């Protein structure tokens, strides 16, 4: 006992001595450096400045960098699955750092998988991680726990250090660890982004958390780089550093990398004396290497690559499931190829560090496993018979009085393959995202998913030209127009692409959002819809675990099904619906801004107000009553009929695609039902007896006709065939239009480039898509011009116009989409004579609740509204209040019980109460 005490004491004093004389940081030959942590670290792999400066400093060291940072990861992520959310069997932090992970479910492998060489015992065996050095970026997400969480955070930092230094990721010795603090939030000098007062509060937290990291690292003798303090003095970061105040641009990354170098090597000159231009070949080589690594580490379709569906096994030859190759063996082999390609590019980096230009040599790649289809066609070589776009029309049954016409197909435009989503721009051109790599890109092949522009230049109802706006994209599951460019989903990121020189090809691209899970690519960010107030919504399905950092609060987390809401102007990002969807596909906003979301797998329609009240992770909403009982499934996409080309009684009807069994577009009449909606089926728009007919997206064209894309594929099931089944068609895709047979389509109205008064008058159009496209055009115009014009337009409206209240609502939405709070007009609309406008104004009130005085008092009036639908929206709105306001909200919300309550109001109240209960408990 005595001996033990003495030796403990001597150990302690040894540690204290080390602390007093911390060795300067250095890198050694052949070091493997792994970067872990949050988005600050993640974004570095795309810009590459830190890595470039380090490799340039140590050109002979053959350094290996692997970036494992991941949006939203926090310091306890090594042990807490809710702070490092991943889809099933992604691999733990320790498995990644040590390059060691077994097959997750070896018992499920087939006898074919088990043949020698097909499946490696260690699925991370070629990743080259094996960390000697770890750079860890933490503290931003954690800081939202505030003052109350600070002590726990210190303990978490200490635990993380102890855990990490207790491992031998390289198999020999403990890693050398460097911890990095967060940066302060940056003032972007943009009225829609965090302002000074807000930033001051957040930065106070960040400062406290930085100090905590400094304190613990000092005590533990771990190298610490403080990025907060040097950026909070007299010289502050400028807006050029960041896209939103939190995430860095390339310029910001470069500046921060330089700061890191001076912190790590305080006595030395930086960058080995080379200029940025001289470093550019090296940085290019590094970013190229990182591109391959990114697609390896963040491989899409993870659930079918290592998760549960990886272990579906298929017959090799006609059949279904069988004892042939599993998804696992096939897809892991592709990851091995990416591992080797990444390592081959390490060599290019080392050459570049020494001024040599080398091309990567990929003569050592493992061979892909050859997948034999389990659904061969009847033609020679197992090919399937596909009708041409025109022939297929003969197989269609069309709504009484309507006809179908071919707008475009692959015979005319071979790049038109697997169309996922479409949308018309304000010039009347049809944009289609196509997905030839579906279900995702195979290494060594071209990454050639595209965003196409189809144009009918002579107005004959057929596309004449096809331009490729973007030809090098991946999994383009959805897109929307915004601010003169395109918001584009490419899981795990959301991008902004813009053409600045007018050649209809993008020349600027920015990653805006990180951390959207891609476990199943057909569950990934899809069904983009823009609400009339300008926010963009998209959805993801089960298996997915997403975590998104935002300057506007704690990391947004959600698992197993969600609809997201994103305000592109303010970069506000939220989980709009957290619900146990199988796989949501389809989202529409009707004329008054109410929305319906479809769970695509079962085609169940839900009125979104019922389950989009605020809810705190990890809770999920209960199952609301459906809008109607669906007759068949599944649904890939939806639209509202709102077109003066079609008979008036069709206006407001829902169009619902369906791709198995019933292959066509169903039509439902939407009706008010108490506080919510009901719908009944009416005559389908079109359906086909061609078994390959798969209508994927639907939109009303500028000429008022119904356009739909058609995927045209013999295989529709994700589960029934190997991911790489060669029968998954990569050659066909169509766009059709449906019109009244005896009536000419409408003359499209001019939108692009029109003067403001003309655009504003389009907001009076009865056709939803005309107003939608006018709003998009208005979103591109300077706020300083739009707002006065909007005011003048509203004043010019005749108060006796039948749609006067709706026009005024459009005015409110325009303020909202330009993020200009107009309390007076909001209050006017909250008292509108039309209860649909009152409900819509309540949604705006919630979006502005941080900038409207006494929002709860306004909601109290809405909760006592005579209209059930207005009350429904008010009950929904009250779920959005936190802290002491949640207590007040819980007192207000019960006033709804003074009035009749249907099943919808009851459901909404229960959901809001659950959220408020949890928050009031926390307050007390």
């Amino acid at each position, binding site marked *: 006992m005595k001996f033990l005490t003495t030796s403990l004491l001597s150990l302690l004093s040894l540690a204290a001595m080390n602390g007093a004389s911390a060795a300067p940081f250095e890198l050694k030959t052949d070091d493997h450096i792994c970067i872990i942590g949050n988005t600050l670290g993640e974004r570095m792999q795309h810009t590459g400045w830190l890595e470039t400066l380090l490799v340039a400093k140590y050109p002979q060291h053959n350094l290996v960098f692997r970036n494992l940072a991941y949006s939203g990861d926090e310091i306890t992520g090594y042990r807490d699955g809710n702070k490092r959310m991943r889809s099933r069997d992604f691999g733990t932090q320790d498995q990644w750092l040590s390059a060691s992970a077994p097959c997750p479910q070896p018992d499920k492998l087939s006898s074919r998988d088990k043949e020698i060489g097909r499946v490696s015992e260690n699925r991370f065996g070629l990743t080259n991680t094996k960390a000697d050095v770890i750079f860890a970026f933490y503290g931003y997400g954690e800081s939202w726990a505030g003052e109350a969480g600070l002590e726990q955070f210190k303990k978490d930092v200490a635990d993380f250090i102890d855990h990490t230094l207790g491992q031998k990721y390289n198999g020999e010795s403990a890693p050398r660890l460097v911890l990095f603090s967060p940066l302060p939030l940056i003032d972007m000098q943009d009225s829609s982004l965090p302002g000074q007062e807000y930033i001051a509060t957040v930065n106070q937290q960040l400062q406290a958390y930085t100090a905590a990291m400094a304190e613990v690292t000092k005590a533990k003798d771990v190298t610490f780089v403080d990025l907060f303090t040097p950026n909070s003095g007299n010289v502050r970061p400028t807006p050029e550093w960041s896209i939103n105040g939190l995430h860095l641009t390339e310029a910001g990354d470069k500046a921060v990398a330089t700061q890191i170098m001076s912190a790590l090597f305080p006595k030395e000159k930086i960058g080995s004396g080379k200029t940025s231009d001289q470093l550019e070949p090296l940085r290019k080589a590094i970013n190229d290497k990182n591109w391959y690594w990114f697609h390896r580490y963040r491989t899409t379709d993870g659930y079918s690559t290592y998760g549960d569906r990886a272990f579906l096994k298929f017959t090799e030859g006609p059949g279904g499931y069988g004892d042939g190759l599993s998804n696992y063996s096939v897809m892991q082999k592709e990851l091995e190829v990416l591992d080797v390609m990444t390592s081959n590019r390490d060599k290019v980096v080392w050459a570049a560090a020494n001024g040599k230009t080398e091309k990567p040599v990929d003569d050592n790649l493992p061979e892909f496993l050859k997948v034999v289809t389990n659904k061969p066609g009847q033609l020679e070589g197992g090919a399937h018979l596909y009708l041409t776009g025109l022939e297929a029309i003969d197989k269609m049954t069309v709504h009484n009085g309507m006809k179908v016409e071919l707008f475009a197909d692959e015979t005319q435009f071979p790049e038109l393959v697997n169309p996922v989503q479409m949308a018309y721009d304000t010039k009347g051109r049809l944009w289609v995202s196509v997905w030839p790599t579906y279900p995702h890109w195979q290494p060594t092949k071209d990454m050639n998913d595209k965003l196409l522009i189809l144009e009918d230049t002579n107005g004959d109802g057929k596309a004449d030209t096809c331009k490729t706006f973007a030809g090098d994209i991946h999994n383009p599951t959805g897109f929307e127009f915004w601010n003169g460019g395109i918001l584009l989903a490419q899981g795990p990121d959301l991008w902004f692409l813009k053409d600045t020189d007018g050649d209809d090809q993008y020349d600027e691209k920015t990653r805006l959002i990180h951390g959207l899970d891609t476990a199943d690519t057909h569950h990934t960010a899809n069904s983009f819809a823009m609400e009339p107030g300008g926010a963009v919504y998209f959805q993801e399905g089960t298996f997915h675990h997403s975590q998104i950092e935002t300057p506007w609060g704690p990391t947004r987390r959600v698992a197993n099904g969600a609809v997201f809401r994103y305000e592109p102007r303010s970069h506000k990002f939220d989980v709009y619906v957290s619900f146990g969807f199988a796989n949501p596909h389809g989202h529409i906003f009707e004329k008054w801004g109410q929305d319906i979301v479809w769970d695509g797998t079962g085609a169940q329609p839900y009125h979104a107000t019922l389950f989009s009240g605020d809810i705190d992770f990890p809770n999920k909403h209960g199952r609301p009553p459906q809008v109607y009982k669906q007759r068949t499934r599944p649904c890939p996409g939806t639209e509202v009929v709102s077109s003066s080309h079609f008979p008036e009684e069709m206006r407001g009807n829902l169009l619902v695609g369906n791709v198995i069994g019933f292959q066509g577009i169903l039509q439902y009449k939407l009706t008010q039902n108490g506080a919510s909606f009901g719908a009944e089926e009416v005559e389908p728009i079109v359906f086909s007896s061609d078994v390959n007919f798969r209508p994927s997206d639907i939109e009303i064209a500028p000429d008022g006709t119904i356009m739909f894309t058609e995927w045209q594929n013999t295989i529709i099931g994700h589960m029934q065939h190997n991911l790489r089944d060669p029968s998954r068609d990569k050659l066909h895709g169509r766009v059709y239009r449906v019109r009244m047979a005896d009536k000419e389509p409408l003359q499209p109205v001019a939108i692009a480039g029109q003067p403001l008064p003309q655009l504003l008058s389009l907001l009076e159009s009865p056709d939803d898509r005309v107003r939608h496209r006018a709003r998009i055009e208005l979103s591109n115009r300077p706020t300083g011009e739009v707002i006065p014009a909007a005011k003048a337009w509203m004043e010019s409206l005749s108060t006796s116009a039948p749609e006067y209240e709706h026009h005024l609502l459009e005015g409110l939405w325009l303020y909202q989409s330009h993020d200009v709070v107009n309390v007076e007009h909001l209050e006017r609309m909250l008292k509108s004579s039309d209860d649909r406008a009152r409900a819509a104004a309540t949604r705006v009130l919630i979006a502005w609740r941080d900038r409207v005085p006494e929002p709860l008092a306004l909601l109290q009036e809405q909760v006592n509204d005579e209209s059930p639908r207005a009350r429904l929206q008010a009950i929904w709105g009250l779920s959005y209040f936190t802290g002491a306001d949640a207590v007040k909200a819980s007192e207000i919300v019960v006033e709804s019980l003074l009035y009749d309550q249907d099943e919808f109001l009851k459901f909404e109240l229960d959901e809001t*109460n659950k959220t408020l209960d949890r928050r009031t408990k926390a307050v007390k």
Partner: protein
Amino acid sequence: MPALRTASALFCLILIASPALAEEPTSAVGPLMKLFESGRLPAQRQPAVVEMICQRGNANDLRVVLDRILQADGFVPELRIQALDWLADAAETRKVVPAGDLSGLAALVIGDRATGQPQLQRRAIRLAAEWKVAAVAPALQKLATSTEVTPALQRSAIDGLITIGDPGSHQTLKELATAGHPLPVRMQATAGIVSFDASAAATAAAAVLHDATAKDALGPLLDAFFQHKEGVDGLAAAIKAHPPTADVAKVALRYMYSVGRSDAALSNVLGNIAGISADPTPPTPEEVARIVDEVIAKGNPARGEAIFRRKDLSCMKCHSVSRAGGQVGPDLSPVGVSSPVDYVVNSILNPNLAVKEQYVTKVFELTSGKVLTGVVIDRDDVRVNIRDVTGTTVTIPVADIEEEVEGRSLMPQGLTKFLTHEELVDLAKFVSELGKPGPYVLNPGRTIQRWRLMNEAPEELTSSVPHLEHVRELILGSDSTHWTPVYSQVAGVLPLSELRENGEPFVLILKGEVQVRTAGAVHFHLDCTERTQVWVDAQPFDDAKDWSATFDPGVHAVILRIELSDRPDPTLKLEVSTPNDSSAKFELVGGY
């Protein structure tokens, strides 16, 4: 004496309640209580508020509700009954009971206030049992063993004893399980014994099954064993030692497969007694390939449809086709289009091979030892709602969950033991044809697909064409327990011969339902009208072949009374349409 008792009860209440009040525990329904006691609440809004208080309130809040229940004029009678149920739910799901003395509830179980109000009394029994009010146990024992009370009251009393679970109640249950009591009583008591003495329950159950006939409802008794961790194997051993008749064994075996159970020991014992072969071994890939070839070459989909519809396989209890059938498993209407034959064969032989995301099950083991399996519909911090294999939504209190693990498919493995090889081939052929162009293409939804067949129709309906009063009272007025779902074939035809056995029953009473969304005229066309009468709601239609009725929005019933003649192969097909000049919009009600 009564006065004295009240006084001491009151004293008790004050003693217990006052420290609790002094602590002022936080209430999630403070604003609701204020509203409730403010006098602002209109009478018709009271139930919603009381329900929410019961759903979310703390012990003091629930006390306020209980006091209102116990006051003579605290609530209108209907609300009093509802409030008892809500308090029972609060105790069961959230484990919250009113503060203070609860013995006052006894007055609603026995005594003047209880008699003559059977609904109130039964709910008070449930609640008293949930709260384990000791004072009530002797009264329940008395009611449970009485031969003079109604069967419904006796059932409630036995349930009460099961819940209270004190030694006296256990003793009474064991006594009730013995021979000499009516079979339904013995079954209910035996099911109750499983929870505290599984081995005694197994012995008792074997004796009950020995005395049962194939017509008795065995489900609830068997479920009690299925829902107990070790229950099933004990039951198998007891049955082996004391076997029932072959017919009862066969019914029990069918039942267990129909609820997705294929526990080896029990299925072997029952199979041996019933003379049905043991579970087939899972097929090798080569065997599957051979079966697939046979399905393609010689499967007969028409015969397959008849097999799919067979009661002993229970396919339609879980799977719907053309909107008719259960909602537990996937709707199979379009399945042939997306799924190759191989997939269909494998899914029948080995349902666990691939499960679509929304049908993944969870198994919940509760602290009581009970085991429940189902698909999670939704959940929050208090309860989990699952859909079980019968399609019923079951609420599980989160506080009761000991363990939650991923389960297997709800579809039982080994169903094929009820099939010959040829039948399996035909069944797979039928399923793989579903949705493809041809006779099994998706039904457009214009024929009644789900019928309800009246069980054992009373003589007033069978002996001659009933008058309207009888139609109203005995058909439209009968609750769901009097009806069994029967389904038309994919193409809309209901084979009537499937509904009879040995020529019985002679008269069929069938009910279809139309959900009208927009008012207007709806047209009906019946293919064969021989000895058939038609009523729509309570209106008779003399021309049973073609008729129209004008409907308001809502669910409307079409009633057919068919005297089966000697037609060799009688069928029925009822088509429903909207006349050209009608504004009606409707859906035909499907489901289970």
